């Protein structure tokens, strides 16, 4: 998401699911939406049927989504940027790109052009395995069928160059002029219920809610919203440095305990709270397990006794049963930035408690209830109000509980294609008030960066987030604001303009901007060249553990990164060309439709467990025969780091002979041993199995530190 935000302003899905019905082409890369987002497929299949939209699926694996594609492109794992840059190059050299769009709304085109020129169809074929003529054909398809949408998921982000991959996707859409239009956009499908909401609240280690960051200004803003004294907050930290220093990430927190890589913190981590989080979705899981057994305290707050609970072998674990979503209420945010009110269906069953109550009990015992609940008398409505008041950056000011409930209650009055209400109590508004919903009367923004609508009616330009002018390394100067004539209808300024000073912390500034028909965050160009990234224009870099040692020299990874979210993170020193000799197969992981995340919930459902009872490795018939493996055999999959798992063999052509695939949602087994006996009595899931993440390799994105689950190496040994 960092890559997307740094291109044009916000790191979120730009259009919405229903809008895909307007697409003339759908380009999936690194997404198996048929299994991960089955409900969204109705819109995709509609566009395919009615608009004759080509459905292009780029993936190392012939997925169930690929089965619905018109064009399937098999790509070597970890080479997405090379493929995308190859497409971009074709658009440029054949003059198929949208010149007007690029000239008026895009910056850094000249720099892009220079880098893209390297990615000729032949170079792309060598790196990705996609035939050169396919690269040209797909580029032509993209050019001939506009507007098209680009959809991706974790297959794009979970790489050491994940943030380059996401930017390459964005740049592709900029070249096609597919941004800010219905049927176009970058539709990044979020993986879980309310992930967008969790991201917006920055349940992350490097930012306060609403993407404010950790600066003193950010702290002061939120202290004001919370009604809490800044100095008191400051006094809670070890030192002022830690108030502004990003913490550990989900991907690498365990290093804070086991310290196999150097950590940059005054103390090792002593306690961890898992609140609705599966530890078995973290790579190199055997190291996570080691950390769990070293911690002084592990608290698991979940409706289920998770894999984490079973994995802890030290007497250090507390399970706090929380309610499911049906036993509590509040607002949730969809992948496409919409809010919906989730009403309570039943009172909490057994001794489970809603998350709000668990948090309140903690705060009470910690002794700062008076400060924590200053604005919150009615739960959860007052929580939603506080979020609205504080989160001006993404325009949540209009997300009042009354409005969200009104939309949910009258969902049938909204149009299936445009999301706009026709008549009724929400007339003219868009379903779920997609953010930015700038004020209490704003209708929501269904499509980001759409300059055909006034800002007050859901239009927006690209965000001016990176200054007004930039000098590139070769001395070329470029105005970063949008060209003359590019502005939303009714804008006082008929071209680009910088952001309004103070808009992120003062609603009156936002109101002023809207009154003048202008976007509070300015009107700029989208960037092809992000100077604040290690690769300002996306370039291919071989995976840390590459099956092509010959390419490592030409496309090496980054230098190592010390103090990266408080832990030394290896890049160059981890890229070993000789590794492929002992670990010849590429390992990728992903979803199955039956299971969700770490699988605590779905594997505890007897019907889902019946459909998908066991973990398996998909192995190509050729590879299976070369290893003497048959369908149903058991095999050890081993990682270079020393992780190993025993799984069933599934012989299938879904994967090519160089690749194996393992679904990642299993748990309850560990390196050949069952931990069923470690669950509280009666709570063993119906389906248990080895977490694939035990063998997922070392490797993290250079910008966000997301784990690279789609580009490791492994080997097979008959069990």
């Amino acid at each position, binding site marked *: 998401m960092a890559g997307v935000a740094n291109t044009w302003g916000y790191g979120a899905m730009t259009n919405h699911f229903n809008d895909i019905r307007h697409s003339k082409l759908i380009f999936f890369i690194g997404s198996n939406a048929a299994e991960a987002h*089955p409900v969204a497929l109705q819109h995709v299949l509609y566009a395919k049927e*009615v608009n004759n939209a080509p459905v292009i699926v780029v993936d190392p694996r*012939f997925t169930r989504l*690929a*089965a619905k594609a018109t064009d399937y492109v098999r790509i070597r794992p970890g080479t997405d940027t090379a493929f995308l840059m190859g497409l971009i190059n074709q658009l440029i050299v054949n003059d198929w790109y949208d010149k007007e769009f690029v000239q008026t709304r895009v910056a850094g085109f000249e720099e892009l052009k220079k880098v893209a020129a390297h990615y000729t169809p032949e170079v792309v074929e060598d790196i990705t395995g996609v035939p050169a003529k396919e690269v040209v054909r797909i580029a032509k398809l993209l050019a001939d069928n506009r507007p098209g949408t680009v959809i991706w998921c974790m297959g794009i982000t979970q790489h050491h160059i994940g943030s380059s991959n996401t930017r390459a996707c964005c740049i592709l859409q900029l070249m096609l002029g597919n941004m800010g239009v219905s049927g176009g956009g970058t539709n990044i499908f979020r993986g879980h219920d309310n992930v967008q909401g969790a991201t917006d609240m920055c349940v992350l280690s490097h930012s306060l809610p609403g993407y404010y960051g950790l600066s003193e200004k950010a702290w002061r803003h939120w202290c004001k919203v919370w009604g809490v004294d800044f100095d008191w907050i400051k006094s809670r930290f070890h030192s002022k440095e830690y108030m502004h220093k990003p913490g550990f990430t989900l991907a690498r927190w365990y290093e804070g305990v086991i310290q196999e890589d150097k950590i940059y913190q005054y103390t090792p981590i002593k306690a961890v709270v898992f609140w609705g989080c599966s530890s078995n979705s973290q790579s190199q899981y055997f190291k996570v397990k080691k950390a769990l057994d070293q911690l002084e305290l592990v608290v698991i707050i979940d409706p289920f006794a998770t894999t984490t609970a079973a994995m802890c072998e030290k007497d250090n674990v507390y399970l706090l049963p929380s309610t499911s979503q049906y036993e509590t209420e509040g607002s949730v945010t969809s992948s496409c930035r919409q809010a919906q009110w989730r009403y309570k269906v039943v009172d909490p069953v057994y001794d489970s408690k809603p998350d709000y109550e668990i948090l309140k009990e903690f705060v009470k015992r910690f002794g700062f209830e008076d400060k924590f609940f200053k604005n919150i008398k009615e739960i959860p409505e007052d929580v939603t109000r506080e979020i609205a008041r504080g989160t001006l950056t993404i325009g949540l000011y209009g997300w009042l509980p009354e409005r969200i409930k009104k939309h949910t209650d009258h969902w049938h009055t909204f149009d299936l*294609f445009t999301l706009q209400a026709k008549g009724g109590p929400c007339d003219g508004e868009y379903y779920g008030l997609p953010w930015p919903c700038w004020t209490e009367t704003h209708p929501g923004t269904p499509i980001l960066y759409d300059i055909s609508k006034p800002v007050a009616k859901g239009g927006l330009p690209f965000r001016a987030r990176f200054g007004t002018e930039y000098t590139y390394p070769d001395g070329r100067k470029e105005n970063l604001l949008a060209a003359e004539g590019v502005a939303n209808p009714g804008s006082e300024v008929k071209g680009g303009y910088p952001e309004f000073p103070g808009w992120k912390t003062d609603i009156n500034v936002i109101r002023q901007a809207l009154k003048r028909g202008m976007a509070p965050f300015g009107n700029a160009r989208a960037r092809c060249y992000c100077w604040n990234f290690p690769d300002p224009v996306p370039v291919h870099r071989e995976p840390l553990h590459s099956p092509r040692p010959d390419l490592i020299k030409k496309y090496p990874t980054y230098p190592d990164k010390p103090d990266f979210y408080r832990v030394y993170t290896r890049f160059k020193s981890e890229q070993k060309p000789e590794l492929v000799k002992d670990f010849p197969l590429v390992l990728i992981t992903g979803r199955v439709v039956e299971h969700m995340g770490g699988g605590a919930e779905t594997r505890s459902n007897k019907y*889902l467990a019946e*459909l998908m009872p066991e973990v398996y490795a998909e192995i190509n018939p050729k590879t299976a025969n070369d290893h003497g493996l048959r369908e149903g055999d058991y095999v050890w999959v081993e990682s270079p780091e020393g992780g190993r798992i025993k799984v069933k063999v599934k012989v299938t052509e*879904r994967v090519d002979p160089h690749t194996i695939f393992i679904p990642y949602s299993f748990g309850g087994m560990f390196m050949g041993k069952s931990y069923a006996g470690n669950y509280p009595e009666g709570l063993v899931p119906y389906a248990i199995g080895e977490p694939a993440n035990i063998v997922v390799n070392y490797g993290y994105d250079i910008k966000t530190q997301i784990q690279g689950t789609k580009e490791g190496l492994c080997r097979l040994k008959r069990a």
Partner: protein
Amino acid sequence: MAPGPFGPGGKEGSMGLMKFICDTERCIACNGCVVACKEGNHVPVGINRRRVITINEGQPGERSISISCMHCSDPPCMAVCPAEAIYKRDDGIVLVNKDLCIGCGYCLLACPFGAPQFPKAGPFGARGVMDKCTFCAGGPAPTFSEKEKRLYGQNRIAEGKVPLCAGMCATKALLAGDAEVISKIYAERVAKRGSGLSPKIF
């Protein structure tokens, strides 16, 4: 009784013919239909009133289809049943009377779709009574009775609702209801293919 969403429902009076269609262009093998059926009707593990079948898995030409009892116009299961336990309602829904079924399994041999299901064989190979898709129309026990729910599951048809499987289907691949209504929906869908227009299809 109030007419349901697909014409008049229930047992009495003149009514349409209840049918399923599965659009293989739309089925993504998500198994939502299977799980909805099992959860909603409390079907035991091992009994599959509905299944998703995939052919050419992992290869170009992969297709999936959701299959259950097709509620045939001339059901072979009914013809071969020695206990006359299988009957057909006026609305075309084929049901089994579990009080009469002797578990012989002839219906399973006769059915081209493998729809009849039997609980696991016991030590002497004895089968339990047959279970199959009821089109969510309960069974011969009194409508909405505890016995009906226990032996056959929900009676959504009597409530004027579509079967759970079709109601759940995310891509609307699986359509269920009055044959005339669903064939019209399907025909419209086929007619609109490639039209590039954007009127609503469902």
